[in-house]
Each structure stands twice: as structure tokens, then as C-alpha cells.
């Protein structure tokens, strides 16, 4: 692969969108808060984020990230988070199946095919895992 390096294929001069993440992660809701009734205070424009119930614990998300990185042989420095889409990381159908199998082993759960089909992001996987773990108890 030496003949094709990242530097020889660059789309830098094209107008590529700079935002890495597309929109909000599932389970997070953004509410702009404008404090109109406050006098001299500066308006607060930063969105507040509320976690909708049933989002997974950070540790679960972390574990899923690890498993995904391992399956896709991503360099350890790769940024993988809840929002990361499997497909965007380069997972094909076989990878996705292996990832699901890896998650089953790690968490001692069994994922049905219909549910597995709905997993598109790390967050999806983590949420499903916690749901299935809860059922076990």
C-alpha cells in the first residue's frame, strides 16, 4: 500500500464539511435557552442537553468503542464515541456481525437479528446492551 498514501489523495482544496459529527447523538436533546426575562445578564445561548432516559452508561459506551476499534483494527488514537457510525468507520456487514458477536461475548447477552439490524452507532449498541442486560436481571 506504499504507493497510495494519505497525502497523495487529498480533498483538502474541495469544500468538505468540517464538522465531523453530524447532528446530535441519539438520546440527547438540545434545547436553546434564551433568558429573555433577565435584565443585564448576558443571554445564554449555549444549548442545554438533557439525557433522555434509557441511554447507556459511559462505561458501556467505552467498552463498545474498544470492541469496535479491535474488530475494525483501528489505530488506538482513533476517536470513537457514542455518535460514531459503524459504517463511517469502515464496518461492512461481516464486521458488524463480528462486532455484535463480540458484544454478546463481552456482556453475556444474546442479540436477535432484528435488533442487530437497528444498530448503526456505538450508542445504539450500548443502549441495546443495557436493555438486554436489564432483562437478564
Amino acid at each position, binding site marked *: 500500500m506504499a*504507493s497510495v498514501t494519505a497525502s497523495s489523495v487529498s480533498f483538502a482544496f*474541495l469544500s468538505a*464539511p468540517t464538522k465531523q459529527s453530524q447532528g446530535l447523538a441519539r438520546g440527547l436533546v438540545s434545547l436553546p435557552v434564551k433568558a429573555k426575562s433577565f435584565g443585564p445578564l448576558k443571554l445564554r445561548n449555549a444549548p442545554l442537553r438533557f439525557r433522555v432516559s434509557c441511554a447507556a452508561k459511559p462505561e458501556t459506551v467505552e467498552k463498545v468503542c474498544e470492541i469496535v476499534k479491535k474488530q475494525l483494527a483501528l489505530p488506538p488514537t482513533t476517536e470513537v464515541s457514542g455518535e460514531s457510525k459503524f459504517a463511517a468507520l469502515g464496518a461492512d456487514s461481516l464486521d458488524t456481525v463480528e462486532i455484535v458477536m463480540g458484544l454478546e461475548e463481552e456482556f453475556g447477552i444474546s442479540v436477535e437479528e432484528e435488533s442487530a439490524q437497528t444498530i448503526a452507532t456505538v450508542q445504539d449498541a450500548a443502549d441495546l446492551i443495557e436493555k438486554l442486560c436489564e432483562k437478564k436481571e
Partner: protein
Amino acid sequence: MRMQCLDTKFFTSSTSLAPIQLPSRMETHLWYVIPNEVKSEQLLNKYLEFLPKSEKEHVFSLRGDELQKGALLARALVRTTIARYQINQVSPRSLKFRKNIHGKPEVDWQQIEDWHPQQLHFNISHTKSLVACGVSTHNPIGIDIEEKERKIKHSISSFAKRYFSQQEVQLLCSISDPEIQRQEFIKLWTLKEAYVKALGRGFSGSPFQTLTIRSVADSKESFHLSESSSFENSDIVVESLEDSANLTGDWQFALLELVGSHYAAICLRKDCANKCSHPMKMSVWRTIPLVEDEYVSGTDSVIAVGGLM
């Protein structure tokens, strides 16, 4: 309007988009691009110009240059190829795609005025090192390619038990050499994926497990699958536990080795008039869109493994 407002750069170059003949009814065409052969930034940017905003955004949403290049080549390949079949009545840029109810991509011809093309079906598959597009007329097609050397991290038998039919599991588990077992697994996986994609119903809508795909030796009475000859020089047949006319006997498979590095499976729905099993007639080209084509059927780049003429 439209065609008049030329992409002038694009039409004036004589090598840009040579028209090609559509495949006949029971024939398939397979086009592939080797990403390593496409190095010119200028060329890649030309490809990018073919893509509408949404496809461009998708390409750039992928992580890393390699993935982005692969996705770009896949879109460029499908757009230029389909445009060429229309004898340049449409430009790659003006093609519109949509998804059927189950999410399978297809061409949206309604968007193009005054053009009523023959029924053209296509399907794309790609790996890190190869991008392929299969084309047929009148009959849905599905293709899947995998690197021959792809390593499976989990045990083949656990995979097989989960996704394959009982007979297939038995067959795979009976192979003692792990390397041969892995290869046979990959071949079977690509065949099943090609079937799922031809069906266009998505993974869960397809009877992965109740469908057995196997090769048939020349003698019709019984078939004998030895470790080394599972899918070589023999027909590939499909059996369904459900015995549904919709599934069995309606699909034709071919398996081949591409450029020594990939297995490629093609699944084509059989013509209603043509129920008996014929090997699939296929033409294969290596291509660099806008630059060159090379017909490679019959060369070392294409080695039939099963189901092909």
C-alpha cells in the same frame, strides 16, 4: 432542459465516456475498479463533480482518506457505468437514485425527461482494495465481494450456526483444515450476501438460514463435496426448506476469483421463461472511469469458481 447546458469539459474529451451495450436478458456485466490504480487528484475531483451534494456529504462523512476514496469510486463507477449504457443520453451527474421499500438502491428514471430506458438493474459492493458494480437487464442482481485473505476473528462454526442452514453448518464443520474452512466460509458468505442484496429486502427480510447454497457435482444422483472441491467447476444450486416458489429455483449464482485477491459472488433472478439452470453468462471489465476499460473475462484476473459458463 438539461442536456443542453453541457458539462462541457466532460463531453468534449473523447475518452471520457465511451458508450457500452446493455447486457442481454440472461447476461450480467461486472465492472471493477482497483483503488490503487486511481492516483490522480484531478481525476478524483472529476469524479466528485458527478456527485450530488448528499452523496458528497456522505463520502466526506467517512473516516479517513481510504474509506472516502472507496466510497467516491463506488459512486463514480455506478454513475458513469449507467450513463454509458444509456449511450450518453444522460450524464453521470444527472442520474438520480432512490431506495426501494426495503432500502435497496435503484435508478430513479422518472427524473429524466423523455428517456424511457430498458429495465436496468445494478448492485455495488466494495472492499478496501476493490470496488465492483454488477449490471443486468430485466432481472434483479446482487453482488458481494470479499478479500480472500480476510481473517475471521470468531470461530467459523459459531458464525455458521448463527447464519447458515443446517446442511451448510454440517459441511463447514466437517472441513478439518482451518484455512480451507475459512475460505469456504468466505465463499458461502459472499454467496449469501449476494442473494440478500439481489432480493433487496435487507438482512432480516431474507431467509438466510433456511436457504442452502451448495455446489452440485456433475452426476445428478448424489453430490459429493470433498474438502478441496466444494465450489469448483460445478453448478451452484439453492435449496429452501420453505419450498417457496419465490425463493428456490428463481435465483442463479456464480462465484469467481477476481484479480487473485477477492471472491466475488453474483446472484441473478432467473427469467420467468427460463427456469432450467444454465451457467451464467458474464462479461467482466477492469475499469478506470473516464480513462480506460479492459475486458478481462478469460484472463487470469477472472477465475470461475462455480456457476459460470
